[in-house]
């Protein structure tokens, strides 16, 4: 793999052609190299693999890159089955428009749910293996030797007996004409030589010299800038606005509402000018009856859900919980609370849109490039085929960019401007914080019973939470249950004969969305603390107690014991240091964490070490998986300590990083990542690392202080981080 320059070459050329040049996307190649590449013309062996006469191989990447690293790791999978030489591999984004015109030939572009590897590995391996077989068939035909005698290694096709060999380039044209073989055998994982390697990330060089292009960086000739004020109270509308002085400010081009008054927009020749003018616009907001909601009213509504009689049972319920509770030795009850949270990626929301007579061009940092075309098309009442979405790197996504609200707004703004005017909409950080698609608030009521032998004999869970399925996706709930809100309870790793879990939807006017690790970011906070509470009631070690109840769940046991071993669980920590442990099964992976900490009398927590263990089945790029677990740890600690979006007078209280605190470098603890792949399945890696972290932290806090922290964030309990 060489530089990242070629990553977006095709996009660059397409974009330039489409809008008549002048794009400053920063992906230009040295002119001579670009001309040579264009003249020689690579051959498409199949839709994932292109081979150029110089033997270089271009592997297509369909999903988005937002820091999760699969722009590098997904092509590693293709390259391995292809037996390519990684040094000759270039990576190029699939062109979104071509993808739509070809009936979504490249599969899903969704970069959500830690699914890029696990949900594409099968067709990516097939793509590599098939292209390899076609190159072999071309060689067999050229050399007139049996295909079965031909080997491919490191980008070289060879026939030992006749001493013939060739790079891919000379065979590509003939390979492309071969019949596409079916059921090409895939490699035995033991023979992989690119999968499993810590290949450097291809997008990193551009991230260290300022040339990486994010949505916010798109620059087009004649471009104007838009600043937006959305109704502070969710669902509100502008009745009207006074903008006389704002209109007179330097650079202001236009001021109007979009979305039936949901937002007021200022367009200017510079974003700062637009934003300052917007601050001068006096807007008369109609709150649409939502202006009274606050933390207390919302909490009351959720608490009522914990005792409501019309909750929906989960499909894994079994036995007779009531009878088992009655006959039990000890019965425990606990309530847990997790707040709304904002994603707050470092790149704020925004999009650039240009509408010409025949086409709509969109540049935006997104996790769903093809979905964005549909969303923009719908906003403009056009067909997705006329919307051309250009690829850029996303400055963090974490689920927020799975929604296309900002691109939709940019399209509505562009539609109000003279045709052909490119407009860049950028949200301020305050808009980003106050108009998120928040991690749903959720409350949990748990009840558990131990028999005379301290076995858990009954487990009851009530989950009161928003429903992403109903409120975000707009799909009906299967038998009243939201699968994401109940993750972690719909299959306990613990053997409990009598189980009664139920879910009740609590929809408020606060918009909710997919926040990194989704349900798994919060359900373990309740589940993995409650199992600890049961262990404490039984007077047992939390690890042994868990393991004792996991006889039938080998993989959960394996990851838990792996983390414990790495943490030295069997040897006592130094005096004053305490440990907590938790285990989870998110996104088809298994993750467990151990947190080692001490707490002083002032409630200051010092984290001495965190062990994060993951079994994702297979590890494609170890270096990247480690980075994802390190990052997920930071993400989780931010949420645990400070994360809260509070509601007051119908609107969000927090505005920016001063009151929506996130972890900084000085607070970063030592993290030991343990990769423990067992093979046999494919799990995700971007999100699972977060799942066990917060309960492990809270369990360690219990060990240290004897107190249970059943609501977040921890700063509300007077705790802080050293």
């Amino acid at each position, binding site marked *: 793999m060489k530089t990242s320059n070629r990553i977006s070459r095709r996009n660059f050329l397409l974009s330039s052609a489409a809008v008549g040049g002048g794009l*400053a996307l*920063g992906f230009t190649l040295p002119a001579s190299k670009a001309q040579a590449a264009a003249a020689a013309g690579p051959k498409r062996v199949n839709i994932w693999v292109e081979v150029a006469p110089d033997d270089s191989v271009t592997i297509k990447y369909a999903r988005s890159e*937002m*820091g*999760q690293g699969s722009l590098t790791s997904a092509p590693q999978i293709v390259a391995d089955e292809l037996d390519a030489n990684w040094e000759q591999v270039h990576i190029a984004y699939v062109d979104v428009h071509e993808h739509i015109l070809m009936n979504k030939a490249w599969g899903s572009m969704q970069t959500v749910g830690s699914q890029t590897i696990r949900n594409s590995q099968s067709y990516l391996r097939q793509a590599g293996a098939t292209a390899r077989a076609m190159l072999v068939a071309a060689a067999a035909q050229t050399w007139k030797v049996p295909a079965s005698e031909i080997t491919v290694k490191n980008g070289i096709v060879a026939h030992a007996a006749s001493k013939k060999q060739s790079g891919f380039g000379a065979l590509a044209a003939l390979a492309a004409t071969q019949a596409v073989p079916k059921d090409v055998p895939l490699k035995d994982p033991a023979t992989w030589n690119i999968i499993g390697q*810590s290949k*450097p*990330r291809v*997008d*990193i*060089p*551009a*991230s*260290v*010299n*300022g*040339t*990486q*292009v*994010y949505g*916010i960086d798109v*620059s087009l000739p004649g471009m104007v*800038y838009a600043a937006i004020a959305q109704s502070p109270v969710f669902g509100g509308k502008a009745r009207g606005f006074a903008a006389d002085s704002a209109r007179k400010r*330097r650079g202001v081009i236009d001021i109007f509402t979009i979305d039936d008054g949901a937002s007021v927009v200022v367009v200017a020749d*510079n*974003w*700062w000018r637009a934003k300052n003018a917007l601050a001068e616009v006096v807007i008369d907001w109609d709150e649409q009856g939502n202006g009274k909601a606050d933390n207390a009213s919302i909490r009351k509504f959720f608490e009522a859900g914990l005792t409501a009689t019309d909750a929906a049972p989960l499909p894994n319920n079994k036995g007779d919980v009531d009878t088992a509770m009655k006959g039990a030795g000890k019965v425990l009850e606990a309530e847990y609370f997790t707040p709304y949270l904002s994603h*707050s*990626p*470092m*790149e*704020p929301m925004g999009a650039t849109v240009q509408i010409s007579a025949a086409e709509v061009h969109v540049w935006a940092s997104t996790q769903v490039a093809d979905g964005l075309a549909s969303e923009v098309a719908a906003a403009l009442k056009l067909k997705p085929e006329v919307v051309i979405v250009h690829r850029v*790197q*996303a*400055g*963090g*996504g*974490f689920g927020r960019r799975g929604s296309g609200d900002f691109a939709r707004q940019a399209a509505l703004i562009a539609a109000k401007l003279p045709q052909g005017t490119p407009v860049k909409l*950028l949200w*301020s*950080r305050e808009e980003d914080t106050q108009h998120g698609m928040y991690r749903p608030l959720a409350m949990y009521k748990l009840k558990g019973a131990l028999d005379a032998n301290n076995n858990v004999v009954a487990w009851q869970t009530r989950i009161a939470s928003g429903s992403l399925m109903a409120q975000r996706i707009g799909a009906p709930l299967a038998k009243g249950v939201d699968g994401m809100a109940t993750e972690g309870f719909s299959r306990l790793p613990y053997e409990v004969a009598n189980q009664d879990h139920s879910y009740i939807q609590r929809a408020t006017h606060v918009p909710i969305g997919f926040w990194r690790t989704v349900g798994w970011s919060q359900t373990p906070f309740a589940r993995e603390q409650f199992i600890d509470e049961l262990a404490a009631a039984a007077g047992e070690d939390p690890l042994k107690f868990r393991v004792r109840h996991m006889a039938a769940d080998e993989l959960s046991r394996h990851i838990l014991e792996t983390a414990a071993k790495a943490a030295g669980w069997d040897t006592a920590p130094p005096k004053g240091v305490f440990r907590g442990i938790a285990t989870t099964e998110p996104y088809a992976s298994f993750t467990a964490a151990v947190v080692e900490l001490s707490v002083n009398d002032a409630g200051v927590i010092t984290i001495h070490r965190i062990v994060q263990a993951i079994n994702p089945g297979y590890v494609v790029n170890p*270096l990247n998986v*480690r*980075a994802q677990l*390190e*990052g*997920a740890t*930071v*993400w989780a600690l931010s949420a645990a300590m400070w994360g809260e979006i509070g509601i007051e007078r119908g609107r969000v209280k927090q505005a*920016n*990083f*001063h009151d929506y605190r*996130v*972890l*900084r*470098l*000085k607070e*970063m603890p030592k*993290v030991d*990542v343990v990769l423990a792949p067992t093979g046999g399945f494919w799990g995700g890696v971007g999100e699972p690392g977060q799942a066990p972290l917060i309960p492990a932290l809270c369990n360690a806090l219990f060990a240290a202080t004897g107190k249970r922290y059943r609501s977040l964030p921890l700063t509300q309990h007077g705790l802080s981080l050293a």
Partner: protein
Amino acid sequence: MKLQINNQVHEVDVEPEMPLLWVLRDILDLKGTKYSCGIAQCGACTVHIDGEPMRSCVLPVSSAEGKRITTIEGLSHDASHPVQQAWVKHQVPQCGYCQSGQIMTAVSLLEKISKPTDADINAAMTNICRCGTYKRIRDAIHDVAGNAPEVAKA
């Protein structure tokens, strides 16, 4: 007004109170310097003014007049600055969005203290990284300083 950016003089006609960030990004098309918070909280917009790291989102352009302004684009032509190289070696960036600011802050730390301690790094590196690359940032800074041989584990 005249601005000296990356050893080149630029003439701009802007309001004196416009933050340097927006002059760089939207007037001069120097997009490597990023906007994230706009209130001096995150450091994504960090540039050097006469060698000092400054948060350009709150710096009126007029106060940078007559001073030496260095942005990420001016750090090196070819990403050859030792800090940039260490960032690649340690595979620091995830999304990369905060990294121009992180690198500019680290460069000035290392210019002042060639062998920073962990405490020095804690004090200087107050920039936010939402992807959580802090461990690697610390490792990379130590590596440039020749402090610790620890390389990103594979």
